[in-house]
């Protein structure tokens, strides 16, 4: 009878730990936070079971404090250049389409750079998005050096008073060093074409990804210096908990979430709502 209160709280922590693990929150991180709550319970810092979830929520929310940036960067640079990177199939090209659509609605002048010169019909896919959003597309022949497409797109954007350049790149696994080198070259060439470019480098992460996403983010961050993350496919059942570790470890802002395949399926990332969804 005396221990039943304690074991009920322990059970609650166990259940919440399982919820976090099922949401793809980093394994060590989920266990560490739950151990902290178990300690809080022992030290009577957590009084009743209602406080348990609140304590965990608070720990998780601190992971998003490292970078306060949110929403689209409103910028004085012209053009403001955003480079989109990430592993194969994460949703980079579609995300560019969605952002172009948002910026077009704000009457911004946009250029899309078809920096994926490798994958079959990659430029054609981006071309359809440029038609849907009235953005200008700069592309090259299949197989040309992607850096040259980026260079052309930025040169054109500078001359034509364009507000934003959204640059697509081919999907790549972070384990392929020659492909990571290619991205670094794209980055350097962007800076040559337009001083300060790329002003933003955003990693596109698929919400269905598991623990490997943290390693991906680290490698892309080491190679390029990421400035933000977009989390896609949150309209499915996966909860994308890996961004907790990404935000916490790399101090990167999670800027947007993708919630579908159409142009307006993009929302700003709201940490409170996101943390709540992990317990669902």
């Amino acid at each position, binding site marked *: 009878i005396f221990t039943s209160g304690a074991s009920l709280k322990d059970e609650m922590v166990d259940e919440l730990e399982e919820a976090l693990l*099922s949401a*793809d929150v980093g394994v060590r991180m989920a266990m560490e936070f739950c151990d902290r709550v178990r300690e809080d319970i022992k030290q009577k810092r957590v009084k009743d079971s209602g406080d348990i979830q609140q304590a965990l929520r608070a720990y998780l929310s601190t992971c998003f404090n490292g970078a306060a940036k949110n929403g689209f960067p409103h910028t004085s640079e012209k053009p403001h250049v955003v480079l989109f990177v990430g592993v194969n*199939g994460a949703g980079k090209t579609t995300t560019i389409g969605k952002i172009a659509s948002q910026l077009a609605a704000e009457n911004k002048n946009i250029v899309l750079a078809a920096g994926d010169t490798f994958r079959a*019909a990659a430029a*054609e896919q981006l071309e359809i998005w440029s038609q849907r959003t009235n953005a200008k597309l700069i592309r090259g022949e299949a197989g040309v050096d992607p850096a040259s497409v980026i260079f052309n797109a930025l040169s054109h954007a500078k001359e034509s008073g364009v507000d934003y350049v959204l640059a697509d790149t081919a999907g790549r696994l972070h384990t392929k060093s020659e492909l990571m080198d290619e991205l670094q070259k794209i980055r350097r060439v962007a800076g040559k074409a337009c001083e300060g470019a790329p002003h933003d480098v955003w990693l596109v992460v698929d919400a*269905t990804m598991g*623990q490997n996403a943290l390693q991906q983010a680290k490698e892309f961050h080491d190679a390029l210096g990421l400035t933000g993350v977009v989390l896609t496919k949150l309209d499915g059942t*996966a909860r994308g908990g890996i961004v907790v570790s990404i935000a916490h470890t790399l101090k990167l802002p999670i800027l947007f979430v993708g919630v579908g395949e159409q142009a307006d399926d993009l929302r700003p990332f709201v940490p409170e709502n996101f943390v709540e969804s992990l317990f669902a």
Partner: protein
Amino acid sequence: DGFKRAKSAIGGETALSEANIQEAVREIRVSLLEADVELGVVKTFLERVKSRAIGELVQTEVKHKGTKVKRSPGEHFVRICHNELEKLMGSVEEVPIIYRRPFTTIMLVGLQGTGKTTTAAKLAKYLLNEKRKPLLVAADIYRPAAVEQLQTLGAQLNVPVFHQPDLSPPQLCADALREAKKRKRDVIIFDTAGRLAIDDTLMGELEEIKERTNPTNTFLVCDAMAGQDTVKSASEFNRRIDISGFILTKIDGDARGGAALSIREITKKPVKFLGVGEGVEALEPFRPEGLASRILG
């Protein structure tokens, strides 16, 4: 029993017990979770292996490359886990593609971006090597330039790609059977649009394709980097269209691939192929040994 254990300990033997493998069980649990094995699957897998292992007599010293080395109960348990994992992942003689006369059909399904279109081309290449005459069917009418993507890949391989504008995917797939007969192709590969398992309309579309074409093979194409959720979507795809097996793509990365164990455990369906790169030759028939060690990590 205690005497039997003590006696066998003197003889260089010991019995595996709940106590002496507890630490190993804990470590394997964390390792499997970090490998993206689904939480429930980790539990049932470890329970099963424990119940099989506990009470088993093991050698405290073993010969390893000619010298005697100590092997703790925990280390023995890890070995047993590894063997169980390999057994679970399925046998090598699993024939990757079931062929049928007058033609074989392969339907590729899965979540968005898992590698279906690329895998369709890889399968066409594999079939060419097997002296078959594949026909690719571009049945994704939604994604921008999906048809062009498959047509580009088909052209590179000199494999015909069937597509007609203004047809629904089920109609396209049904018409493809006639096309195959006309062009004397003997294997037809349906590339379908990526979709959420919870999208009732699009899952209904797959059911309709299945109903009208009765595919010999239905492969769920899954990303090796997928996390905990993959079991939910895989079992839903399996429930609605009864997959014959799955293809794990992007295994050329460093994701541990635990999703494969989860899907195998829950659906009981085998892994047929592994996607090991972006090129059309980057497809291998599945072998369980490599994956088992990778998942256990």
